């Protein structure tokens, strides 16, 4: 999977490494900004009220 991505990136090794880094950061950003905020309320830490709101 990662080998396939690596082979399909343009440029020499340095350019590919740089693009990979940008891709990784983009994935982390999407996770922190969208995926994790959606998943976190499914965990029990949010239940602090007594009326179940």
């Amino acid at each position, binding site marked *: *999977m*990662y*080998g396939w991505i690596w082979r399909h990136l343009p440029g020499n090794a340095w350019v590919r490494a740089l693009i990979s880094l940008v891709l990784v950061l983009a994935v*982390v950003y999407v*996770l*922190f900004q969208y995926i*994790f905020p959606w*998943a*976190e*309320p499914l*965990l*029990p*830490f*949010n*239940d*602090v*009220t*007594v*009326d*179940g*709101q």
Partner: protein
Amino acid sequence: MRVVVRTFSELCITVGAVIVLFVVYVLFWTGVKADSAMDRQIDVLQDQWAKRPVATATPAPDASADPSTDSSPPKPAAYQDGKPFAVMYIPRLGFTWNKPVLEDTKVGTLKKGLGHYSGTAQLGQKGNFSVAGHRRTYGDPFKDFPKLRRGDAVVLTDGTTWFTYLIDTGPYKTVPSDIGVIDPVPRKSGYDEPGRYLTLTTCEPEWGHSHRLIVWAHLDSTQPVEAGKPEALRR
């Protein structure tokens, strides 16, 4: 075959990395976000309070613009959902511990501060002013909740008045469906007549949601903000 094994191991490593990132998010990043959100809420409040006319000295035109200064203790205007209206101080949780109190207890509201149960009494009014807060994650506002003891002060301000509540009943463990704890005269609290009460709720155990921890307090004193900080906040 090699491709399959390799792809499978890469997927496993990826899932592991995502789980680690998620733990970082829950334990660390929610705290960072909540701290800045709470600071922003307090800034919003302080801006509002700074703009509010000083109605005590100038009665005629300003008093109509601000109904909250008419009576003593002042009757506040209706709180707006999801908006901050007060700041809470609990010296037992730390001398610098202060958190904004927002109206309603929705998930999104509790990310920005403590949540006032809509439908319970307003600050300082007759009835039970009830507030919920996170024990863990989102800045851990009520992390040290079990340290609260009888006699501890819970101080709130709405910008015009300081309200000092004193805790009567230490952390009381109950189940999540026990709505009676935020009744105007909370059951099992030891109070038997109507009064000006305060209830704080959070989750128990620390990382779980099977129970709730409750403390009850009564309004001990009020003083206008012009009179300076109340006794409990001085050092």
